């Protein structure tokens, strides 16, 4: 045990520290509960989005396969040149129980046929459908990027909080309690020692008194004789 001064002052300090640690632990627990609630809320939406993404991705791949098979990959790649654009997304942030999470500004990636840029006459609906499905996949991916990042950050925060609660509960508070107990024991021991010492002194003093008294009595008897 680290060096602690076994004083009443120190005991009071330790007790205050224990109270503070317990208060902190309770607060962290409450925060963790709230975070877990938020986490599960996001988790259900993430798992829905993941399922949706899987479905859309499968159908997009199939549409691409059919378009490549029927329209010739060269035609498809050429149409891809016409629609190739970079996607810009605005990212801001918000706080969930003190955890910063990103908010991605939802600009729809999906376009209408005329917005895609390729000529209508020589392209087919298969190419439209492939583009549509991949655009839908991108929309879901952007949505998922926001929720999954939030979920990951909340998860990390929950884990950190759990470690903090565990540290408080299993290390700090027990250590403070044992220190307090040690101080208490030391003080009690000292009190007992003091009492014993006092009793001892008292008995010595009493013995001395008795001796003096006996001496005086003896002198008195001698004087009478």
């Amino acid at each position, binding site marked *: 045990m680290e060096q602690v001064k076994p004083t009443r002052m120190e005991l009071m300090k330790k007790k205050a520290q224990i109270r503070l640690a317990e208060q902190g632990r309770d607060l962290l627990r409450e925060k963790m509960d709230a975070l877990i609630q938020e986490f599960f809320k996001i988790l259900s939406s993430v798992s829905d989005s993941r399922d949706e993404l899987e479905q859309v991705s499968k159908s997009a791949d199939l549409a691409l396969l059919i378009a490549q098979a029927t329209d010739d990959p060269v035609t498809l*790649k050429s149409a891809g040149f016409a629609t190739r654009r970079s996607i810009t997304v605005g990212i801001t942030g918000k706080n969930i129980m003190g955890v910063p999470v990103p908010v991605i500004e939802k600009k729809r990636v999906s376009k209408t046929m005329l917005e895609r840029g390729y*000529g209508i006459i*020589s392209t087919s*609906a298969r190419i439209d459908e492939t583009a549509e499905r991949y655009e839908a996949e991108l929309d879901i991916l952007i949505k998922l990027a926001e929720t999954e990042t939030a979920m990951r950050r909340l998860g990390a925060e929950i884990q950190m909080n759990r470690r903090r609660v565990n540290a408080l509960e299993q290390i700090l508070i027990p250590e403070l309690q044992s220190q307090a107990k040690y101080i208490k024991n030391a003080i009690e021991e000292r009190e007992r020692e003091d009492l014993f010492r006092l009793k001892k002194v008292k008995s010595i003093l009493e013995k001395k008194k008795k001796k003096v008294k006996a001496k005086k009595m003896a002198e008195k008897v001698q004087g009478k004789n």
Partner: protein
Amino acid sequence: MDYGYINARMRGMKSRLLSHRELDDLIQKPDLESLIADLENSPYRDEVIEARGHLLGILCIEYALRENFTRTFRKIQNFAKQEEAEQYIIIFLHRWDVQNIKTILRGKNIHVTSDEILSCLVPAGEMDEATLKELLKQPDLRAVIDLLATWRIRYAQPLTGAYPEYLKTKDLAVLECALDRYYYTDALDSVRAPGYNNGLIRDFLRLEIDVVNLKTVLRMVRDRVDAEDAKRYLIGGGRQFDERKLGELLTLPSIEDVVKALSSTPYRFLADIPEPALRTQKISIIEKELERFLIKKGVGAFLLDPLSVASVIGYFWAKYNEITNIRIISRCKTADVSPDLLKEELVYV
């Protein structure tokens, strides 16, 4: 050289096309390698062996199919010196030119590297590889159009005409639409002279224009594009539908209504498409039926006068059908698509 000879050659070539049974055998192949091996024992042998030297897997097959398609038509062009038969092949080969110009314009528009654009070009038309490479060297879209005009390549005309509108809207579809319209107008013009053969080619071109216009109408109706805007994307000269009729179709509120409106036309077969496909606006299914109709009509040309350009038209569509089928089979093999699903996609068999 007379049409009797051309007809005999065409029918001979047709007999070498893969039969339904041979296509079924290809479907049953366990993997792409065995499919390639099988194609090496077919009329695609030379092209597959050539492609195998520098390409693998699906790329090898697709390259071989493209090469075989263009070589076959070059071969027909060489022996079909009759004016109209050659003209039909030229009209077909011009499609590659239009496609190549579009690819270059699209690439230049978004500044794709020349190598990447080159990988998407197929020098099968009138413009050879050197011409295409020279076009690729141009710094921008304007320079590409200017070079086409300097070389007096026919496609410079529609592009120069549509360029001011492109500058205003920055919409590349304007240029592409002008090119496509010009292609069909030019093709119709080239067979304007009277005569049975020219009439036959004209008829097939007009049928194709109808199908292309119908596909455009369906896509426009699905996307609820304003009828007046949509009219800009229609091609004139169709067999069944003039601008007025197409305009009426464009004002209809849904795909189902368009299909209903077609019930009094040769396209009444579209009413047989399952209701859910129409309700979910899945145009690719309708498009598939329209393409099948076009191919059937094209292949059916074999039944017309044998001493005419009909056999060339019939062979073109039969070959196109075969190439598309092999491509679908091989693509589906790469994705391990089940034979049943593959057969569903293989609409043209």
